[in-house]
């Protein structure tokens, strides 16, 4: 049950993150058009925030022994989704004309709109690794399964948004519902405590540098 709920967290976060990538096009297209530049900007911003999110999430995971930080991160991401129904389109429209017409302008739009929520969701994976992890002998299998589950959520997020959500519901409704789902998930984590079951983390100096998941794993082995 515990493992299942953590996997479910991973799937939901993965789903919402990639759904935002597809929906994000809708926040930028009215102003920036739909050329290849728009998609290049969106994809690069999401990958960038994943990379930052992994580092930050890994560090936080090392310092914590429960799901409390995870709860705050998911809750904050949910809040961004809800608020984006308000400021998303308006922000694109209020950018000045030189920014709207410049080729790099869309990068600025994508950075401001998508970096905060996707960075938060990106930091979820390393935190989950720490919580799912039970046995040093199974470190590869555990992290592998967790990443597979999260990526499955990504795939579903892209396809379901493309084939169903975009056609059936308004942009703002999609964002709002996802925000509420993320918020509820965050609140559950806030009020239902999940302890990390691994041994106490080793001193930070012995932790190998690298990605969040790597740090968490080596910390536990030590």
């Amino acid at each position: 049950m515990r493992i299942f709920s953590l996997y479910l967290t991973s799937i939901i976060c993965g789903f919402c993150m990639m759904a935002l990538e597809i929906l994000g096009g809708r926040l930028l297209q009215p102003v920036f058009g739909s050329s290849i530049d728009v998609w290049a900007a969106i994809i690069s911003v999401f990958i960038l925030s994943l990379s930052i999110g992994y580092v930050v999430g890994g560090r936080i995971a090392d310092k914590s022994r429960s799901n409390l930080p995870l709860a705050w991160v998911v809750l904050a991401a949910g809040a961004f989704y809800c608020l984006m129904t308000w400021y998303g389109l308006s922000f694109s429209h209020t950018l000045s004309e030189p920014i709207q017409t410049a080729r790099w302008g869309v990068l600025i739009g994508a950075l401001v709109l998508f970096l905060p929520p996707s960075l938060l969701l990106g930091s979820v994976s390393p935190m989950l690794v720490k919580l799912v992890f039970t046995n040093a002998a199974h470190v590869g299998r555990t992290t592998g399964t967790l990443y597979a589950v999260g990526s499955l959520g990504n795939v579903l997020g892209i396809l379901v948004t493309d084939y169903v959500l975009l056609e059936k519901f308004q942009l703002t409704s999609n964002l709002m519902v996802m925000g509420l789902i993320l918020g509820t998930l965050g609140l559950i984590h806030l009020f239902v405590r999940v302890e990390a079951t691994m041994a106490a983390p080793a001193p930070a100096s012995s932790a190998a540098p690298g990605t969040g998941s790597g740090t968490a794993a080596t910390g536990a082995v030590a």
Partner: protein
Amino acid sequence: MSWKLLGLLLFAVAATLGFCFRDNQYRLDSKRMAADQEVLDHRDSAYTSMTWVASPSENYLQLRFFDKVEGGVCLHPTWQELVDLKDPRLAHLVPATRPEMAPPAKIWPFTWTPDPGTVSNSPYVRLFPLSILMNNKLVAAAGTDPRQANARILVVGLGSGAGIAVLAHHFPNAAITVVDIDRKVVEMVRDHFPLIRWLSEQKRADGEPRLQFKIGDARQFIHFHGERKEPSYDVLILDAYTAGSTIPSHLMTREFFLDCARVLDDDGILLANVIGSYGTSGPDNTIEGEKHRVLGGAIRSFRAAGLVSVINFPVLSVWETAGDFNLADPRNNIVVASRKPLEPKGAGDERWERLKSFVLFPEVAAGKNVSRQYLLRHTKDDNDWATSLVDASVIEGPDPTFASKLTPSPTALKSITFRNSSDKDAIKAARRAVVAWAQKERGGKMPCNWDERETDQDAIALREIDWVLYARETYLTSVVAAREVTKHGGEALVGDKDFLDETKAPDNAILHDAPIFTDQRPNADILNR
């Protein structure tokens, strides 16, 4: 525990704010737009977000994609008004029974629903008939009246359906196939444009549908045309765009045009709407100038695909004339291409006389479908239109002589006139009238920038448009411009030699650094901004 409750509270606040201030998918109240715009319906699809917007004062029904106007059709004359003319030349538009239409969205405030006719309010779609008129084989087969041509037409990209309506008006025997990637666009047009819905249910005498829709990517549809063993087309019209005036890059390559040439009859005409410019703007060829590469690239790519004879029909603004227009401005261009020569064979050339004598909407009298609207301007800021446009009755209601205080200022066209005034009292009176109207009719909601607190608009203008006359005039201007093939022919624009070289165009061309777009280097997507 208190931290957790704070978290709950903060999230609840965020969710409530987001819900209460959630954005509309479309924007109506902006300058340069009519103040009385209303939404007939809005839908989203996987490809786009579309809104039918109507303005009674400016006489249009437009389908907008991501808030961008992609063409529209006049509300008047309505289809019923065309039928009521009882003109034998319009017998092909008289329905036995009218089609059942979808109801408008709840937000639509009027008790009537639009029943637009065929007069379009965007100039470029009115040039679509050129494709049939320039096809000598079609016209010869039709005998004395080119309107009777049995044209097989393939149109890529539906948009609002305004171009289809123009073709259907003038060519009763046309069999039109429209390919569009988005099922929802076709549904949207069929649900709210009665004439188009009716046409799609009609058959020609020989059993061919007068209008049919194919859902799919045009590249695939055209590529696999040969396998379906269908007859070739007399006319192919390319008008597919995504948001932001961008042609999908795979529909703007030499390889695609080779496929296009294959589905065209030997005398077939390809007609493409290309948003681009003739030249670079700014002294050092700054970024806006990239638009000219799209136009030049399209022309070179057509020629590289074997459609060697190319003539461009530029769509001019009301301030421009055929002999004098701004080469740097991006504009709609109707590029016509064919395997067979299109150039006029000297003065009195039969084909070009046919183009010139063609009258758009000849059954509809001029002077009846006129829109009159007021707006405020910044004269210092390049004559910027600073407000939305309000119907003349709003200001002339309280003061019927208001228009006579303004000074006429002619345009290049008879169908559009402006009257201006910088008189402060006149501006003040106009503002007062608009405020009173907004309070009485709109529950106090002010149209864009008409508020009395705003003071930097220093001139008022009245714009009058006669839509039918406007259609005829803009058509003729483009034809007269294109007739000068030394300026608008393919050879003049992109050079007369080496048009197979992908890397560079010859120096003697006007659009001298136009590339050939290929599947390997389909640059249109990036450049067309």
